[in-house]
């Protein structure tokens, strides 16, 4: 592969073009984003996000940076869980920041209601505008796949974590059994683009999402990337037979 190109779904595009192309996908579908996740996860992405939040250790005094946090559902769930603990145990209230490169996405999140200790920032995952050692947890849910230079983003998410902090990445992955892989292929390549056209009038964006999921590295290869970025105690949890996976790592 030429070093100056990068995958955009199944296409190879110039490295400098990917960010703009991804932005178009999300600008054209920001309001339908939940629907898209529902279709691609067979309706269970909310359960996956819940598990993701648990792994990010919501608790009094915590600070979460949710990268590619879009409309903020991971951050809200994190604060809900931390606040429930804080009411029982006391301590400082937790805080969360939603960072996303897409302003339209953040604005649609804000319209769902702002709240105390939840902030919104437009930012690029590859050069985050946060100080070193800012957060007790960094999450990225269905976002790392869309990042142009994944190695840079992983290193930067490592940088902003406090020592002992947790990185939790939820992403579509690869089914671990043949029968499920076949079924999922049929669903994603035949049904999803058609549903995208019918429901959102946006076949191309859905086609991109399906392809980009296939191009994303398998569980073990991505785990290695976390280690290369500096994370320790890297672990993988398959969800729904590997349709999605959670990768976690600790900053020592």
């Amino acid at each position, binding site marked *: 592969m030429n070093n100056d190109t990068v995958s955009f779904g199944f296409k190879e595009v110039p490295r400098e073009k990917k960010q703009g192309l991804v932005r178009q996908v999300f600008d054209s579908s920001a309001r339908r984003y939940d629907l898209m996740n529902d279709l691609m996860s067979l309706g269970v992405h909310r359960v996956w996000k819940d598990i993701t939040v648990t792994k990010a250790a919501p608790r009094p005094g915590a600070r979460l940076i949710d990268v590619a946090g879009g409309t903020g559902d991971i951050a809200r769930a994190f604060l809900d869980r931390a606040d429930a603990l804080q009411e029982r145990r006391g301590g400082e209230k937790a805080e969360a920041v939603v960072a996303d490169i897409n302003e339209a996405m953040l604005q649609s999140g804000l319209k769902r209601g702002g709240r105390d200790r939840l902030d919104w920032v*437009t930012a690029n995952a590859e*050069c985050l505008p946060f100080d070193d050692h800012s957060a007790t947890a960094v999450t990225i849910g269905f976002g790392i796949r869309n990042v142009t230079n994944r190695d840079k983003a992983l290193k930067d998410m490592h940088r902003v974590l406090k020592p002992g902090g947790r990185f939790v990445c939820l992403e579509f992955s690869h089914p671990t059994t043949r029968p499920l892989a076949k079924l999922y292929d049929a669903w994603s390549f035949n049904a999803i683009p058609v549903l995208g056209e019918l429901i959102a009038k946006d076949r191309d964006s859905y086609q991109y999402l399906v392809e980009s999921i296939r191009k994303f590295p398998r569980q073990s290869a991505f785990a290695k990337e976390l280690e290369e970025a500096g994370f320790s105690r890297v672990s993988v949890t398959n969800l729904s037979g590997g349709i999605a996976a959670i990768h976690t790592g600790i900053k020592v």
Partner: protein
Amino acid sequence: MSDTEKNPSQAQGGGVDPKLLEILVCPVTREPLTYDRDANELISKAAGLAYPIREGVPIMLPEEARELDA
């Protein structure tokens, strides 16, 4: 920081949450930022850039920032 109680969210208008400002840095230089209340911008002196705040959301992208006069 007791004013965060009375000032529930940046969503309600201009300004930037002081708690957020504590951890925000310039994405180019990683230097701290100063908040220019009149212009409603976050200034990075080292980078010579002013990052806009739109509807309460700091836009921390160099390509969206205004270049400061030298």
